Structure formats: C-alpha cells, structure tokens
C-alpha cells in the first residue's frame, strides 16, 4: 500500500465529500460522480496537502483514485 494512501483517502473524505465506503484505489472518478469542477478541487486539495501537482485537465472520468495516488507517490519520491 502507498505510504500516502491514508492521508489521501482522508482528504477525499474530509475535503471532497466522498463516502468512505465508496473509496478504493480502483474506484473511477466517474463512479464517485466527480465532474470537471470536482477534479479541479481535487487538484487544489492535493497541492495543499502534499505539494504535488495534479493536472486536472489530463484526468478523465475513467481514471482511478489509484492513478492519482501513484502520481502523488512519484512526485514525493522525486522531490
């Protein structure tokens, strides 16, 4: 499991209103009913919490929570 998963999941629940029971690394943003504006809020929240840059314009509804988590992990390792 990613070292950042607990923090990221807490952020998704506390800041973005995702129900904890729906939150898995396989969950797509479409399944979580994230629209374009919610993806922008996600990128802002990730930037504030982790200092990691998520390009929300590159995210699609088919991308998963795990995809974003891997981006965070990669940026934190290289920084």
């Amino acid at each position: 499991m990613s070292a950042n998963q607990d923090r990221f999941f807490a952020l998704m629940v506390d800041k973005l209103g995702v129900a904890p029971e729906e939150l898995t690394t396989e969950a797509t943003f479409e399944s979580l009913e994230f629209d374009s504006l919610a993806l922008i809020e996600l990128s802002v929240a990730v930037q504030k919490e982790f200092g990691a840059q998520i390009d929300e314009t590159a995210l699609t509804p088919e991308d998963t929570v795990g995809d974003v988590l891997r981006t965070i992990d990669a940026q934190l390792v290289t920084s």
Partner: protein
Amino acid sequence: MELTSPLGLVAGAWYPPESQSVQDAVARGDIDAATARDLGYVSLPVSSAVAPPDMAMEAAREVLLRCGVRPEKLSLLLHASVHHQGHDAWSAPHYVAERLGAHAAVPIGLLQQCNGGAIGIETAAARLLADPEAGPALVTTADRFLMPSWDRWRSDYGMAAGDAATAVLVHRADGTHPAELLLHAIGTTVATELEVMHRGDDELNATPMGHSPVIDVRRTKRAFIKAYGVEWFTKTAHDRIRAAVDLCLRRAGLAPDDPRLRYAVIPRLGTKAMDEAYLPPLRESTSAELLDLGRATGHVGAGDLNASLADLAQGDRLAPGQYAVVLNGGGGFTFTAMAVSRP
C-alpha cells in the same frame, strides 16, 4: 426596478433549421458521455448560414408583424450579444435598426454577458418610464457559437451553447398595441466581485482572442476555483439569486406561494449547474413549479430569459391571470428575475 404600472411585452425567438443532437456530439467526440449527462441537453441549434444580426432581424420582423408595430415607431433598439457578431469595430445594433427600418430608434449594444437580454428589457422599461413620448422599445439578442472561435460543447463548464436570436417588444400596455404578456416587476442584483471568474489570472492584453485561439472559459474558471474555491461562487450566487427573486416577487405583489404564480422559469444552463447554483435559492424563494425550457436549445448566449419569455408568450402554458417568475444570470455577475403574467 419598480414599475408604476405593468408594461406590455410581445416576444419571439428565431432558431436555425439546423441542429446537432447530443448523441451525434458524443459519437463525434465533441463531448464525453458523462458531461453530456450532466448537461442534460437533447440538442443544440446550429446557425452555419445566418450571422447573428441577421438572426436578430428574423426574430424582430416576426415580433413586429405579430403586434402590428411599424419599425419607425420604435424609440429604442437594444441589442445584446456575447460573441462575435460578424465584423469588427462595427455596430450590430445600428445594422439591425437600419435593416429593420427603425430609423427613429436609438441603437444601443449591450455587453452584459449572458444577462444582456434581461438587462435590455430593464433598460427599455426605464426609457418608457422616463420619457412619456417614447414609442415602444425593441430588445434583440443574437449569438452563434462556431469553431474555430467557440467550441459550443467545450468552451465552458456547466453549459453548452446553442445558436438563437430573440426579440422582445416592450410597450406601455395602454391598449395601443397587443400584449402577449404583462411585465409587472424586475429584480436585478449584482455580484461584481465574481467578475474575476471569467478573467482568471490572465492579464488584460491588447489583441482580441489573444489569450487563446478558441474561447476558453474553462481555463479562467479553473484559475478562479484554484484561487477562491467553488463554494465562494455558490454562496454568493445563492445570496444574489434569492435576493433578485424576493425583490421581484415583492414588487409584483406576489407571495412566494401565491396561487397565481404558476411557474418559476429557470435559465438554460446545464442541468447539474442549475441544480447546484440556481435551484436551491429559487426553491427557498418560491414554491411555484419549476419550468425548464432549454433542453432542446442549449444556453442561447444573452437571450435565455428572452427566449423563455417568447415560449411563455406564444404557448398556452400560462392561462389568463397566471404569473411566471423568469430567472436569469450572466457573467460579471448580474442576476435578474422578472414577473410576467398572461393578460
């Protein structure tokens, strides 16, 4: 705006014969299926052949014909638009007035973003109230949203743009001209602190279309959300929408649950955007049945409210004595609610 007595309205809209269905847009990749669901449109009218001022002419001619008002009797021609009208450093309102034969009408262009048509009616009302000799005023709107300058499905969040023109004749309702609707009250509120939403963190430049080759409101909205968050917009919009509707109903002498108030007509934005920004405050202000007239037109630039007046004027939704409150908003921001009734 407080009206001393109701004004008469005759309202029409012109839509091009061509349209694009949402299924076609999804199949062509113009929009993804999830966003299409959130928008909730079934189709968008497309005006490939007719430019906006000529679209406005079509709507205006039909309205003047219906009410029997000669163009030379008009005192004012207000033309509102959002996007390119067909030429640069040139006045579309003067073109419309000239082609229409409205030679005594003062042509004025309104750059009010998407609330331009509504503000046009408010400005027309002010002219009629201020000048007892002024003849009827005509408010037109017209826009088309064509590539390469505007991607009707993707230039903005929360809406897709349809091509249409509207014309609303405003007169004194003194029996001289027919009135399809009576205008009883207008409530307009302002939120200029949200102007930044359509500018983002862009600098003001010296060249038209210099920020992006295609109008990209999504970019400025992303910058806005990153700087201020969605909640600030939603909270401010709710506050001003509620105030506009409350003001309008109070001025019209209508209680929120008044049995005469048949409909609360909503703007032609995407369904999800309306559910989040417009419906909560509207529901707090009135229990009238919600009426959505925009699923087959899309958001028609400066003319959403005026197009809905056209639908109310020409259809049989309102029985004599029944009222509707028609709501609209536009970037900048202003929010307008109008109370109209069937005579």
